[in-house]
């Protein structure tokens, strides 16, 4: 009896996994299977085609122009430097505006259930606006649509939802833009035929999966001789990232020329691993990170530059976009929006607001930042 059950369980799972092989998969582990759109190999900017507005609309939103609005910011999770920075940006903007009451409240782990419950509670409590960074674009859609139906303004940043679940999305940079910047700076440091590995958070995190897929497409197109070795998962835990990075260094030895960190947790941990293994200079570390976390490694010349955008600016812009949407100043079809000290930001892809070019932190400027 036992054996029959075991056998059926095994065959059931095997069938399911074989069925999956039929699906198209990214050539690199960790990438998703959505269509990619690699940029040109030189500095030609991407052709941005105008798309009609595809965001959602709040139903019967009250007139909020000029009034103080209560806003809640729900990031992917709290307790990591990146979202502390976006939170600071939102707080800065709110203080500057004087007419926004902003509070950050996020789950203590990056899963969808807690985030959805939090947002649901805030809908009930009657906030005027919701800022979010989604743990999953589709899972968060039903509760955001509920918010829109309740007349709440909804603006996303960092991690998008499906377009019809929010009014606007502040995009730090296009996925293919980030991919290009990362691979280009990697190629500059490891050479056109260097081999590299990736440390990501989990394979199910949508942003990371998108970036990896775009990176794969761009590398195949513009740096075909570079070699991707493997991708490892390290959750959002820096000790685990450190151990994984070390294992990669140990496994590939001299063949490994570069490590790409896909999260603000992974990159400093990878840099520490390279430092402690005395491989500064022979193994490049490239990736997303906050300046505070990377300062010791940039100052010791172990890491040449950190490619990112400014998350404080991201939060700041998101707050201003929400204010503009609530006031009715930012309407569907607009092509730009004024975001405080950042000036005019352009609208792309129908309902996305582009923050701008990726920001590069180097030894020269890293001392100026504190987040």
């Amino acid at each position, binding site marked *: 009896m*036992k054996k029959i*059950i*075991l056998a*059926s*369980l095994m065959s*059931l*799972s095997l*069938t*399911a*996994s074989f*069925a*999956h092989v*039929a*699906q198209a*998969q990214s050539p690199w582990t*960790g990438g*998703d*299977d959505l269509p990619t759109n690699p940029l040109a190999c030189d500095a030609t900017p991407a052709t941005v085609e105008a798309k009609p507005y595809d965001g959602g609309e709040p139903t019967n939103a009250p007139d909020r122009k000029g009034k103080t609005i209560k806003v809640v910011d729900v990031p992917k999770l*709290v307790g990591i430097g990146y979202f502390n920075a976006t939170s600071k940006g939102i707080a800065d903007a709110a203080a500057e505006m004087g007419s926004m009451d902003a*509070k950050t*409240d*996020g*789950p*203590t*782990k990056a*899963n*969808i*259930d*807690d985030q*959805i*419950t*939090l947002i*649901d*509670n*805030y809908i*009930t*409590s*009657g906030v005027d606006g919701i800022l979010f960074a989604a743990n*999953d674009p*589709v*899972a*968060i*859609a*039903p509760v955001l649509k509920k918010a829109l139906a309740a007349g709440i303004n909804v603006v996303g940043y960092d991690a998008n939802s499906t377009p019809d679940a929010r009014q606007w999305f502040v995009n730090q940079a296009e996925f293919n833009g980030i991919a290009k910047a990362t691979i280009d700076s990697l190629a500059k440091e490891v050479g056109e035929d260097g081999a590299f590995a990736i440390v990501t958070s*989990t*394979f*199910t995190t949508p942003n990371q*999966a998108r970036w990896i897929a775009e990176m794969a497409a761009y590398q195949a197109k513009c740096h075909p001789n570079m070699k991707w070795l493997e991708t490892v998962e390290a959750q959002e835990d820096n000790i685990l990232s450190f151990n994984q990075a070390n294992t990669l260094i140990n496994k590939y030895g001299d063949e490994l020329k570069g490590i790409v960190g896909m999260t603000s947790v992974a990159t400093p941990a990878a840099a520490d691993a390279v430092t402690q293994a005395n491989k500064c200079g022979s193994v490049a570390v490239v990736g997303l990170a906050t300046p505070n976390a990377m300062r010791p490694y940039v100052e010791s010349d172990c890491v040449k530059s950190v490619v990112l955008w400014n998350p404080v600016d991201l939060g700041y812009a998101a707050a201003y976009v929400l204010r503009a949407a609530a006031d009715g100043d930012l309407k569907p079809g607009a092509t730009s929006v004024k975001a405080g000290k950042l000036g005019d930001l352009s609208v792309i892809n129908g309902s996305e607001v582009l923050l701008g070019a990726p920001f590069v932190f180097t030894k020269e400027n890293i001392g100026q930042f504190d987040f």
Partner: protein
Amino acid sequence: MKKFLRHETILAVLAIAVLCVLAYQSDRFFTVDNLLNQGRLMTEVGLVAILMTFVIATGGIDLSVGSIIGLTAILTGVFWQSVGLPLPLAALAAIACGTLGGFANGIIITRFGVPPLIATLATLALYRGLAEGISQARSVRGYPEWFYVLGQGNVLGVPTQLWLLILTAIAAAIVLGLTRWGRTVYAIGNNEVAARFSGLPVDRAKVAIYTMSGFAAAVAGVILVSRVSTTRSDMGTGLELDAITAVVLGGTSIFGGRGTIAGTVLGLIIIQALKNGLSLAGVKGDGTIVLIGVVLVATLLISNIVHRNGNR
């Protein structure tokens, strides 16, 4: 009977106190809309917790329920999209697999004598791993509209899944409190060796209970997919601790032999009310977590002091 009533009475008093305080703190808490909505949100934990009451009452535990939720969710998507089954059949097949996972737990515990904590700790890793491996980190989305009625829709003005929760609670209460199966459960929890010697079908009962626990988790998995309209391999992570908290708060002794469905339901209500009410009152997520921890320990402390007849 007096012993049984004591903890549940404390709990009922606590529940009323909590509801009153929270209603006072925010006028949006005690509205029909909000209460029904909370019912919708707590169904997944609720289904698992109700069946977990049986498990813990026998002196066992099931840590793998969260992973079964994830596995069932993934399999629903896989059976529908990759294997091509029609959606109802895919969901049923996925539930069957989740139930099989619960059955496997039962077999490992009874046939091989592995303590439930370890057995379900192992299957927690195994089932989650299967979910990750089978899904290859892909999500399945784009279900037909009618599927969302289960997780997001209403029937007669009440959220669909809430009906399921209510029916399950009533059925479970009847089985545990009034049938021979229920008495078998308590007997096993009180003294398994004696129960065995009295000729009760101990092994069969245990396998049945763990299978049902898996079944509840599997159904919760499908409901979750319908509620969030996608599948992810990390669904249900940590849910087992929430369920266990509700069951223990409800007065079920972790050593077995004691516990009622009514208690579990009260425990669920208190926790959900706290999560919702505190947020409405302006307390942030982390503060809520701390308070729930304090409530859990404090309630049991009080209950033990009141009961001071040296419980096992």
